Protein backbone atom coordinates (compact mmCIF):
# COMPACT_ATOMS: atom_id res chain seq x y z
CA UNK A 1 0.00 0.00 0.00
CA UNK A 2 1.25 3.46 -0.84
CA UNK A 3 2.08 5.70 2.12
CA UNK A 4 -0.32 8.52 2.93
CA UNK A 5 -0.77 11.27 5.48
CA UNK A 6 -3.51 10.42 7.96
CA UNK A 7 -5.70 12.80 9.95
CA UNK A 8 -8.75 12.08 12.09
CA UNK A 9 -10.40 15.47 12.78
CA UNK A 10 -12.72 15.80 15.77
CA UNK A 11 -15.46 17.83 14.07
CA UNK A 12 -17.03 18.16 10.64
CA UNK A 13 -15.71 21.72 10.35
CA UNK A 14 -12.19 20.46 11.08
CA UNK A 15 -12.65 17.65 8.57
CA UNK A 16 -13.64 20.08 5.82
CA UNK A 17 -10.65 22.27 6.62
CA UNK A 18 -8.33 19.25 6.63
CA UNK A 19 -9.75 18.14 3.28
CA UNK A 20 -9.19 21.55 1.69
CA UNK A 21 -5.72 21.89 3.17
CA UNK A 22 -4.58 18.45 2.02
CA UNK A 23 -5.37 19.08 -1.65
CA UNK A 24 -6.96 17.14 -4.53
CA UNK A 25 -5.10 13.86 -3.90
CA UNK A 26 -7.04 13.45 -0.66
CA UNK A 27 -9.69 10.84 0.05
CA UNK A 28 -12.31 10.79 2.77
CA UNK A 29 -12.28 7.58 4.83
CA UNK A 30 -15.49 6.48 6.53
CA UNK A 31 -16.24 2.76 6.93
CA UNK A 32 -13.27 1.94 4.73
CA UNK A 33 -14.87 -1.11 3.15
CA UNK A 34 -14.36 0.21 -0.38
CA UNK A 35 -11.52 2.72 -0.02
CA UNK A 36 -9.19 0.68 2.21
CA UNK A 37 -9.92 -2.43 0.12
CA UNK A 38 -8.88 -0.61 -3.06
CA UNK A 39 -5.85 0.92 -1.34
CA UNK A 40 -4.66 -2.61 -0.54
CA UNK A 41 -4.87 -3.34 -4.27
CA UNK A 42 -3.05 -0.10 -5.15
CA UNK A 43 -6.10 0.92 -7.18
CA UNK A 44 -6.71 3.86 -4.87
CA UNK A 45 -3.49 5.70 -4.02
CA UNK A 46 -4.46 8.82 -2.05
CA UNK A 47 -1.66 11.10 -0.89
CA UNK A 48 -3.64 11.82 2.25
CA UNK A 49 -6.68 10.46 4.02
CA UNK A 50 -9.15 12.36 6.19
CA UNK A 51 -10.88 9.90 8.52
CA UNK A 52 -14.47 10.92 9.33
CA UNK A 53 -15.71 7.60 10.76
CA UNK A 54 -15.81 8.88 14.34
CA UNK A 55 -17.74 12.11 13.64
CA UNK A 56 -20.89 11.83 15.74
CA UNK A 57 -22.37 14.80 13.83
CA UNK A 58 -22.82 12.57 10.81
CA UNK A 59 -24.52 9.55 12.38
CA UNK A 60 -28.08 10.77 13.06
CA UNK A 61 -31.07 8.83 11.74
CA UNK A 62 -34.42 10.66 11.76
CA UNK A 63 -37.38 8.79 10.32
CA UNK A 64 -39.97 10.24 12.72
CA UNK A 65 -40.83 13.48 10.93
CA UNK A 66 -43.88 13.94 8.70
CA UNK A 67 -42.20 15.38 5.63
CA UNK A 68 -39.04 13.41 5.05
CA UNK A 69 -36.62 10.77 6.23
CA UNK A 70 -33.09 11.88 7.06
CA UNK A 71 -29.98 9.75 7.31
CA UNK A 72 -26.62 11.11 8.43
CA UNK A 73 -23.96 10.06 5.95
CA UNK A 74 -22.01 8.37 8.74
CA UNK A 75 -24.91 6.19 9.93
CA UNK A 76 -24.05 2.51 9.61
CA UNK A 77 -25.78 0.39 7.00
CA UNK A 78 -26.73 -2.18 9.67
CA UNK A 79 -28.47 0.45 11.80
CA UNK A 80 -30.44 2.02 8.96
CA UNK A 81 -31.42 -1.45 7.66
CA UNK A 82 -33.21 -2.15 10.95
CA UNK A 83 -34.90 1.21 11.41
CA UNK A 84 -38.51 0.34 12.34
CA UNK A 85 -40.04 3.03 10.11
CA UNK A 86 -38.07 1.81 7.11
CA UNK A 87 -39.04 -1.79 7.78
CA UNK A 88 -42.75 -0.98 7.88
CA UNK A 89 -43.18 2.01 5.56
CA UNK A 90 -40.27 1.78 3.08
CA UNK A 91 -39.35 -1.91 2.84
CA UNK A 92 -37.45 -1.33 -0.42
CA UNK A 93 -34.99 0.94 1.43
CA UNK A 94 -34.52 -1.53 4.31
CA UNK A 95 -34.17 -4.51 1.96
CA UNK A 96 -31.65 -2.76 -0.27
CA UNK A 97 -29.37 -2.48 2.76
CA UNK A 98 -30.12 -5.88 4.29
CA UNK A 99 -29.41 -7.62 0.98
CA UNK A 100 -26.10 -5.81 0.54
CA UNK A 101 -22.79 -7.18 1.83
CA UNK A 102 -22.57 -9.17 5.08
CA UNK A 103 -23.54 -8.15 8.61
CA UNK A 104 -19.84 -7.55 9.40
CA UNK A 105 -19.53 -5.12 6.48
CA UNK A 106 -22.87 -3.47 7.25
CA UNK A 107 -21.53 -2.84 10.78
CA UNK A 108 -18.61 -0.92 9.24
CA UNK A 109 -19.88 0.69 6.05
CA UNK A 110 -21.78 3.98 6.15
CA UNK A 111 -24.87 4.92 4.15
CA UNK A 112 -23.05 7.96 2.74
CA UNK A 113 -19.92 6.10 1.71
CA UNK A 114 -22.02 3.34 0.19
CA UNK A 115 -23.40 5.75 -2.41
CA UNK A 116 -19.90 6.11 -3.84
CA UNK A 117 -18.94 2.45 -3.68
CA UNK A 118 -16.75 1.73 -6.69
CA UNK A 119 -17.33 -0.90 -9.34
CA UNK A 120 -16.46 -4.55 -8.89
CA UNK A 121 -15.32 -4.84 -12.53
CA UNK A 122 -12.45 -7.35 -12.43
CA UNK A 123 -10.46 -5.38 -15.01
CA UNK A 124 -10.72 -2.29 -12.81
CA UNK A 125 -9.77 -4.20 -9.64
CA UNK A 126 -7.18 -6.32 -11.42
CA UNK A 127 -4.63 -3.54 -11.66
CA UNK A 128 -1.96 -2.64 -14.21
CA UNK A 129 -2.01 -6.03 -15.97
CA UNK A 130 -5.35 -5.02 -17.51
CA UNK A 131 -6.45 -2.01 -19.52
CA UNK A 132 -9.10 0.12 -17.81
CA UNK A 133 -10.25 3.58 -18.83
CA UNK A 134 -11.68 4.17 -15.38
CA UNK A 135 -8.42 3.39 -13.60
CA UNK A 136 -6.03 4.67 -16.27
CA UNK A 137 -7.81 6.93 -18.81
CA UNK A 138 -6.89 6.10 -22.39
CA UNK A 139 -5.67 2.57 -21.65
CA UNK A 140 -8.77 0.91 -23.12
CA UNK A 141 -11.46 -1.35 -21.70
CA UNK A 142 -10.72 -5.01 -20.99
CA UNK A 143 -14.36 -5.84 -20.38
CA UNK A 144 -15.66 -4.85 -23.81
CA UNK A 145 -15.23 -8.04 -25.81
CA UNK A 146 -13.80 -9.68 -22.66
CA UNK A 147 -15.32 -11.49 -19.69
CA UNK A 148 -18.39 -9.30 -19.36
CA UNK A 149 -20.84 -11.61 -17.56
CA UNK A 150 -21.40 -9.12 -14.75
CA UNK A 151 -21.10 -5.95 -16.79
CA UNK A 152 -23.63 -3.27 -17.54
CA UNK A 153 -26.44 -3.70 -20.03
CA UNK A 154 -27.56 -0.09 -19.71
CA UNK A 155 -25.63 3.18 -19.71
CA UNK A 156 -22.36 1.82 -21.07
CA UNK A 157 -20.14 3.58 -23.56
CA UNK A 158 -17.35 2.58 -25.94
CA UNK A 159 -14.97 3.46 -23.10
CA UNK A 160 -16.51 1.57 -20.17
CA UNK A 161 -19.25 -0.91 -19.25
CA UNK A 162 -18.45 -1.24 -15.55
CA UNK A 163 -21.52 -1.92 -13.42
CA UNK A 164 -22.44 0.33 -10.52
CA UNK A 165 -22.52 -2.28 -7.75
CA UNK A 166 -24.63 -0.63 -5.04
CA UNK A 167 -28.19 -1.38 -3.95
CA UNK A 168 -29.04 1.41 -1.50
CA UNK A 169 -28.63 4.20 -4.08
CA UNK A 170 -30.96 2.33 -6.43
CA UNK A 171 -33.73 2.16 -3.84
CA UNK A 172 -33.12 5.79 -2.85
CA UNK A 173 -33.34 6.85 -6.50
CA UNK A 174 -36.79 5.29 -6.77
CA UNK A 175 -37.89 7.57 -3.92
CA UNK A 176 -36.40 10.81 -5.33
CA UNK A 177 -33.79 11.13 -2.57
CA UNK A 178 -31.44 14.10 -2.31
CA UNK A 179 -27.98 14.37 -0.77
CA UNK A 180 -26.71 17.31 1.28
CA UNK A 181 -23.08 18.01 0.57
CA UNK A 182 -20.71 20.16 2.63
CA UNK A 183 -17.59 21.86 1.35
CA UNK A 184 -15.48 24.97 1.83
CA UNK A 185 -18.09 27.03 -0.06
CA UNK A 186 -20.87 25.95 2.29
CA UNK A 187 -23.59 23.33 2.00
CA UNK A 188 -25.53 22.43 -1.13
CA UNK A 189 -28.17 19.87 -2.04
CA UNK A 190 -27.97 17.57 -5.05
CA UNK A 191 -30.73 15.30 -6.31
CA UNK A 192 -29.44 11.74 -6.05
CA UNK A 193 -30.38 11.47 -9.73
CA UNK A 194 -27.64 14.05 -10.41
CA UNK A 195 -24.93 12.47 -8.22
CA UNK A 196 -23.75 9.58 -10.38
CA UNK A 197 -22.46 9.92 -13.94
CA UNK A 198 -22.63 7.57 -16.89
CA UNK A 199 -19.11 6.76 -18.11
CA UNK A 200 -19.33 8.46 -21.51
CA UNK A 201 -15.82 9.36 -22.69
CA UNK A 202 -14.48 9.91 -19.15
CA UNK A 203 -15.32 6.85 -17.01
CA UNK A 204 -12.78 7.97 -14.41
CA UNK A 205 -15.29 10.64 -13.45
CA UNK A 206 -18.04 8.80 -11.57
CA UNK A 207 -19.90 11.50 -9.67
CA UNK A 208 -20.53 15.22 -9.49
CA UNK A 209 -18.93 15.96 -6.11
CA UNK A 210 -15.89 18.21 -5.99
CA UNK A 211 -12.78 16.73 -4.39
CA UNK A 212 -13.14 18.97 -1.32
CA UNK A 213 -16.81 18.13 -0.72
CA UNK A 214 -18.30 15.55 1.60
CA UNK A 215 -21.77 13.98 1.70
CA UNK A 216 -23.23 14.82 5.11
CA UNK A 217 -26.84 13.67 4.85
CA UNK A 218 -29.31 11.78 2.67
CA UNK A 219 -32.95 12.89 2.67
CA UNK A 220 -35.97 11.10 1.25
CA UNK A 221 -39.35 12.80 0.74
CA UNK A 222 -42.04 10.94 2.69
CA UNK A 223 -44.53 9.07 0.53
CA UNK A 224 -47.29 6.53 1.22
CA UNK A 225 -46.10 4.71 -1.91
CA UNK A 226 -43.19 3.49 0.21
CA UNK A 227 -45.35 0.85 1.87
CA UNK A 228 -45.93 -0.92 -1.42
CA UNK A 229 -42.29 -1.43 -2.19
CA UNK A 230 -39.54 -4.00 -2.39
CA UNK A 231 -35.92 -4.34 -3.40
CA UNK A 232 -35.74 -7.59 -5.34
CA UNK A 233 -32.18 -8.81 -5.86
CA UNK A 234 -31.19 -11.83 -7.89
CA UNK A 235 -27.73 -13.25 -7.25
CA UNK A 236 -25.54 -16.25 -8.09
CA UNK A 237 -26.06 -17.36 -4.49
CA UNK A 238 -28.93 -16.63 -2.14
CA UNK A 239 -27.03 -14.19 0.07
CA UNK A 240 -23.89 -12.07 0.23
CA UNK A 241 -23.29 -11.48 -3.47
CA UNK A 242 -23.57 -8.64 -5.92
CA UNK A 243 -26.69 -8.50 -8.06
CA UNK A 244 -27.00 -10.20 -11.42
CA UNK A 245 -30.14 -8.09 -11.67
CA UNK A 246 -32.02 -6.08 -9.08
CA UNK A 247 -35.07 -3.86 -9.07
CA UNK A 248 -36.47 -1.39 -6.61
CA UNK A 249 -40.20 -1.19 -7.22
CA UNK A 250 -42.87 0.83 -5.44
CA UNK A 251 -46.57 0.94 -6.20
CA UNK A 252 -49.61 2.77 -4.85
CA UNK A 253 -53.06 1.60 -5.96
CA UNK A 254 -56.32 3.55 -6.11
CA UNK A 255 -59.50 2.13 -4.58
CA UNK A 256 -60.37 0.32 -7.79
CA UNK A 257 -56.97 -1.36 -8.01
CA UNK A 258 -55.53 1.00 -10.63
CA UNK A 259 -51.91 2.07 -10.38
CA UNK A 260 -51.88 5.59 -8.91
CA UNK A 261 -48.12 5.85 -8.41
CA UNK A 262 -45.22 3.73 -9.53
CA UNK A 263 -41.43 3.87 -9.10
CA UNK A 264 -38.95 1.53 -10.73
CA UNK A 265 -35.15 1.63 -10.55
CA UNK A 266 -32.60 -0.98 -11.56
CA UNK A 267 -29.49 -2.20 -9.78
CA UNK A 268 -26.60 -4.38 -10.90
CA UNK A 269 -27.35 -3.96 -14.61
CA UNK A 270 -26.32 -0.37 -15.38
CA UNK A 271 -23.30 1.90 -15.10
CA UNK A 272 -25.12 3.98 -12.49
CA UNK A 273 -28.30 3.71 -10.41
CA UNK A 274 -30.92 3.52 -13.15
CA UNK A 275 -34.40 5.02 -12.94
CA UNK A 276 -36.95 3.66 -15.43
CA UNK A 277 -39.47 6.41 -16.17
CA UNK A 278 -40.69 4.71 -19.35
CA UNK A 279 -41.48 1.55 -17.40
CA UNK A 280 -43.32 3.59 -14.77
CA UNK A 281 -45.42 5.28 -17.45
CA UNK A 282 -46.29 1.83 -18.76
CA UNK A 283 -48.12 1.12 -15.51
CA UNK A 284 -49.47 4.40 -14.13
CA UNK A 285 -53.21 4.69 -14.74
CA UNK A 286 -53.49 1.02 -15.72
CA UNK A 287 -53.96 -2.22 -13.86
CA UNK A 288 -51.04 -4.08 -12.28
CA UNK A 289 -51.11 -7.71 -13.32
CA UNK A 290 -48.69 -10.32 -14.62
CA UNK A 291 -48.87 -8.96 -18.18
CA UNK A 292 -48.47 -5.27 -17.39
CA UNK A 293 -45.63 -6.06 -14.99
CA UNK A 294 -43.87 -7.98 -17.75
CA UNK A 295 -44.40 -5.07 -20.17
CA UNK A 296 -42.90 -2.68 -17.61
CA UNK A 297 -39.88 -4.95 -17.33
CA UNK A 298 -39.51 -4.98 -21.10
CA UNK A 299 -39.75 -1.18 -21.20
CA UNK A 300 -37.05 -0.96 -18.50
CA UNK A 301 -34.66 -3.02 -20.62
CA UNK A 302 -35.65 -1.62 -24.03
CA UNK A 303 -32.28 0.11 -24.40
CA UNK A 304 -30.17 -2.82 -23.20
CA UNK A 305 -26.94 -3.43 -25.09
CA UNK A 306 -25.68 -6.91 -24.19
CA UNK A 307 -22.10 -7.97 -24.87
CA UNK A 308 -20.62 -11.46 -25.10
CA UNK A 309 -21.60 -13.26 -21.88
CA UNK A 310 -24.22 -11.06 -20.23
CA UNK A 311 -27.21 -11.32 -22.59
CA UNK A 312 -29.00 -13.75 -20.23
CA UNK A 313 -29.34 -10.89 -17.76
CA UNK A 314 -31.74 -9.01 -20.06
CA UNK A 315 -34.47 -11.64 -19.69
CA UNK A 316 -33.46 -12.15 -16.04
CA UNK A 317 -33.77 -8.40 -15.50
CA UNK A 318 -37.19 -8.19 -17.14
CA UNK A 319 -38.46 -10.98 -14.89
CA UNK A 320 -36.81 -9.35 -11.85
CA UNK A 321 -38.77 -6.14 -12.51
CA UNK A 322 -41.99 -8.06 -13.01
CA UNK A 323 -41.51 -10.04 -9.81
CA UNK A 324 -40.57 -6.90 -7.87
CA UNK A 325 -43.79 -5.27 -9.07
CA UNK A 326 -45.82 -8.30 -7.99
CA UNK A 327 -44.32 -8.17 -4.48
CA UNK A 328 -44.76 -4.37 -4.30
CA UNK A 329 -48.38 -4.65 -5.49
CA UNK A 330 -49.20 -7.15 -2.74
CA UNK A 331 -47.86 -4.71 -0.14
CA UNK A 332 -49.40 -1.61 -1.72
CA UNK A 333 -51.67 0.83 0.09
CA UNK A 334 -55.12 1.13 -1.53
Amino acid at each position, binding site marked *: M*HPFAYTAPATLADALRALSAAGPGTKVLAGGTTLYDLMKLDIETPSSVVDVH*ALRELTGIDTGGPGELSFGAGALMADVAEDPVLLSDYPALAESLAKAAS*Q*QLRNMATVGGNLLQRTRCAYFRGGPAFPCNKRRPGSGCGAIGGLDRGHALLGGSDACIATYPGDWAVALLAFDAVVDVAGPRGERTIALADLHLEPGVSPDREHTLEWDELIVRIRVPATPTGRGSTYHKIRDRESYAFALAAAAAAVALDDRGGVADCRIALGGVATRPWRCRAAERELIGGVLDEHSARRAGEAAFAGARPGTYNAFRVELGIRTVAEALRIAGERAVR
Partner: protein
Amino acid sequence: MPARISVARMTSEAETAFTVNGTTVRLGLDPRESLLDVLRERLGLTGAKKGCDHGQCGACTVHLDGRRVVSCLMPAVQANGRSVTTIEGVSGPGGELHPLQQAFVDHDALQCGYCTPGQVMSGLACIAEGHAGDDDEIREYMSGNLCRCGAYTGILAAVRAAATQWEG
Protein backbone atom coordinates in the same frame (compact mmCIF):
# COMPACT_ATOMS: atom_id res chain seq x y z
CA MET B 1 20.00 7.42 -11.79
CA PRO B 2 19.01 7.08 -8.13
CA ALA B 3 16.73 4.22 -7.19
CA ARG B 4 13.27 5.33 -6.21
CA ILE B 5 12.48 3.89 -2.82
CA SER B 6 9.00 4.60 -1.56
CA VAL B 7 10.05 3.79 2.01
CA ALA B 8 11.74 7.20 2.01
CA ARG B 9 8.32 8.82 2.41
CA MET B 10 7.12 6.36 5.02
CA THR B 11 3.90 7.41 6.64
CA SER B 12 4.36 8.71 10.17
CA GLU B 13 3.04 6.78 13.12
CA ALA B 14 -0.24 7.55 14.84
CA GLU B 15 -0.57 7.01 18.58
CA THR B 16 -3.44 4.61 19.10
CA ALA B 17 -4.95 3.25 22.32
CA PHE B 18 -7.69 0.64 22.54
CA THR B 19 -8.65 -2.36 24.62
CA VAL B 20 -8.27 -5.92 23.42
CA ASN B 21 -10.10 -8.57 25.43
CA GLY B 22 -10.27 -6.12 28.32
CA THR B 23 -6.60 -5.11 28.32
CA THR B 24 -5.57 -1.63 27.22
CA VAL B 25 -2.89 -1.47 24.54
CA ARG B 26 -1.03 1.61 23.31
CA LEU B 27 0.78 1.46 20.01
CA GLY B 28 2.32 3.78 17.48
CA LEU B 29 0.68 2.59 14.28
CA ASP B 30 1.35 3.08 10.62
CA PRO B 31 -2.12 4.07 9.35
CA ARG B 32 -1.77 1.45 6.61
CA GLU B 33 -1.81 -1.42 9.14
CA SER B 34 -5.05 -3.36 9.35
CA LEU B 35 -6.53 -4.25 12.70
CA LEU B 36 -6.05 -7.89 11.71
CA ASP B 37 -2.32 -7.45 11.13
CA VAL B 38 -1.92 -5.54 14.40
CA LEU B 39 -3.73 -8.26 16.34
CA ARG B 40 -1.72 -11.04 14.76
CA GLU B 41 1.71 -9.54 14.20
CA ARG B 42 2.05 -7.03 17.01
CA LEU B 43 -0.12 -8.45 19.77
CA GLY B 44 0.41 -12.15 19.10
CA LEU B 45 -3.31 -12.84 18.92
CA THR B 46 -3.34 -15.27 16.01
CA GLY B 47 -6.88 -16.55 16.53
CA ALA B 48 -8.37 -14.19 13.97
CA LYS B 49 -7.29 -15.60 10.61
CA LYS B 50 -6.27 -13.96 7.37
CA GLY B 51 -8.22 -15.57 4.55
CA CYS B 52 -8.91 -13.23 1.66
CA ASP B 53 -7.69 -10.00 3.31
CA HIS B 54 -10.46 -8.18 1.39
CA GLY B 55 -13.54 -8.56 3.57
CA GLN B 56 -15.00 -11.39 1.55
CA CYS B 57 -14.48 -14.50 3.71
CA GLY B 58 -15.10 -13.51 7.34
CA ALA B 59 -12.16 -15.49 8.79
CA CYS B 60 -10.86 -12.34 10.50
CA THR B 61 -14.17 -11.47 12.23
CA VAL B 62 -13.77 -9.81 15.64
CA HIS B 63 -16.08 -7.67 17.77
CA LEU B 64 -15.65 -3.90 17.89
CA ASP B 65 -17.59 -2.31 20.75
CA GLY B 66 -19.61 -5.51 20.78
CA ARG B 67 -20.42 -5.59 17.07
CA ARG B 68 -18.91 -7.95 14.54
CA VAL B 69 -16.59 -6.49 11.92
CA VAL B 70 -14.01 -7.87 9.50
CA SER B 71 -10.69 -6.79 10.98
CA CYS B 72 -8.86 -7.03 7.64
CA LEU B 73 -10.83 -4.09 6.21
CA MET B 74 -10.32 -1.82 9.17
CA PRO B 75 -7.27 0.40 9.51
CA ALA B 76 -6.14 -0.29 13.07
CA VAL B 77 -5.95 3.44 13.80
CA GLN B 78 -9.76 3.45 13.63
CA ALA B 79 -9.81 1.28 16.76
CA ASN B 80 -8.55 4.24 18.79
CA GLY B 81 -10.62 4.59 21.97
CA ARG B 82 -12.63 1.47 21.22
CA SER B 83 -12.96 -2.04 22.55
CA VAL B 84 -11.95 -5.13 20.56
CA THR B 85 -12.85 -8.72 21.42
CA THR B 86 -11.15 -11.61 19.65
CA ILE B 87 -11.66 -15.37 19.87
CA GLU B 88 -8.99 -15.41 22.60
CA GLY B 89 -11.34 -13.33 24.77
CA VAL B 90 -14.29 -15.67 24.45
CA SER B 91 -13.34 -18.70 26.56
CA GLY B 92 -13.60 -18.79 30.35
CA PRO B 93 -10.82 -17.80 32.79
CA GLY B 94 -9.70 -21.41 33.14
CA GLY B 95 -9.67 -21.93 29.37
CA GLU B 96 -13.05 -23.68 29.37
CA LEU B 97 -14.90 -23.41 26.09
CA HIS B 98 -17.68 -20.92 25.56
CA PRO B 99 -21.02 -22.72 25.04
CA LEU B 100 -20.99 -21.78 21.35
CA GLN B 101 -17.47 -23.20 20.98
CA GLN B 102 -18.67 -26.39 22.69
CA ALA B 103 -21.64 -26.46 20.30
CA PHE B 104 -19.21 -26.32 17.35
CA VAL B 105 -17.47 -29.41 18.78
CA ASP B 106 -20.73 -31.19 19.52
CA HIS B 107 -22.22 -30.54 16.08
CA ASP B 108 -19.09 -31.30 14.05
CA ALA B 109 -19.12 -27.71 12.78
CA LEU B 110 -15.57 -27.67 11.48
CA GLN B 111 -13.13 -29.71 9.50
CA CYS B 112 -9.83 -27.89 8.93
CA GLY B 113 -10.73 -25.22 11.48
CA TYR B 114 -9.30 -22.22 9.67
CA CYS B 115 -12.60 -20.36 9.41
CA THR B 116 -13.77 -21.43 12.87
CA PRO B 117 -12.63 -18.45 14.98
CA GLY B 118 -14.42 -16.14 12.56
CA GLN B 119 -17.48 -18.39 12.50
CA VAL B 120 -17.65 -18.40 16.32
CA MET B 121 -17.24 -14.61 16.59
CA SER B 122 -19.87 -14.12 13.91
CA GLY B 123 -22.17 -16.68 15.50
CA LEU B 124 -21.93 -14.99 18.91
CA ALA B 125 -22.93 -11.69 17.32
CA CYS B 126 -25.64 -13.32 15.22
CA ILE B 127 -27.30 -14.66 18.40
CA ALA B 128 -26.77 -11.42 20.37
CA GLU B 129 -28.29 -9.35 17.54
CA GLY B 130 -31.40 -11.51 17.63
CA HIS B 131 -30.76 -12.86 14.14
CA ALA B 132 -30.79 -16.56 15.07
CA GLY B 133 -34.57 -16.93 15.12
CA ASP B 134 -34.80 -19.73 12.57
CA ASP B 135 -32.58 -21.63 10.14
CA ASP B 136 -33.15 -19.24 7.22
CA GLU B 137 -32.32 -16.23 9.34
CA ILE B 138 -29.15 -17.89 10.68
CA ARG B 139 -28.07 -18.78 7.13
CA GLU B 140 -28.69 -15.20 5.99
CA TYR B 141 -26.86 -13.58 8.89
CA MET B 142 -23.96 -16.05 8.82
CA SER B 143 -23.47 -15.62 5.07
CA GLY B 144 -20.45 -13.37 5.56
CA ASN B 145 -18.43 -16.33 6.84
CA LEU B 146 -17.27 -18.80 4.22
CA CYS B 147 -16.23 -22.38 5.02
CA ARG B 148 -14.39 -24.01 2.17
CA CYS B 149 -14.58 -27.41 3.87
CA GLY B 150 -18.34 -27.04 3.62
CA ALA B 151 -19.21 -27.56 7.29
CA TYR B 152 -22.22 -25.28 6.92
CA THR B 153 -24.74 -27.86 8.11
CA GLY B 154 -22.84 -28.30 11.37
CA ILE B 155 -22.28 -24.56 11.78
CA LEU B 156 -26.00 -23.93 11.36
CA ALA B 157 -26.81 -26.64 13.92
CA ALA B 158 -24.24 -25.25 16.38
CA VAL B 159 -25.53 -21.67 16.18
CA ARG B 160 -29.12 -22.86 16.43
CA ALA B 161 -28.33 -25.03 19.48
CA ALA B 162 -26.45 -22.25 21.25
CA ALA B 163 -29.22 -19.75 20.49
CA THR B 164 -31.84 -22.11 21.88
CA GLN B 165 -29.73 -22.81 24.98
CA TRP B 166 -29.29 -19.04 25.48
CA GLU B 167 -33.01 -18.39 25.36
CA GLY B 168 -33.84 -21.40 27.53
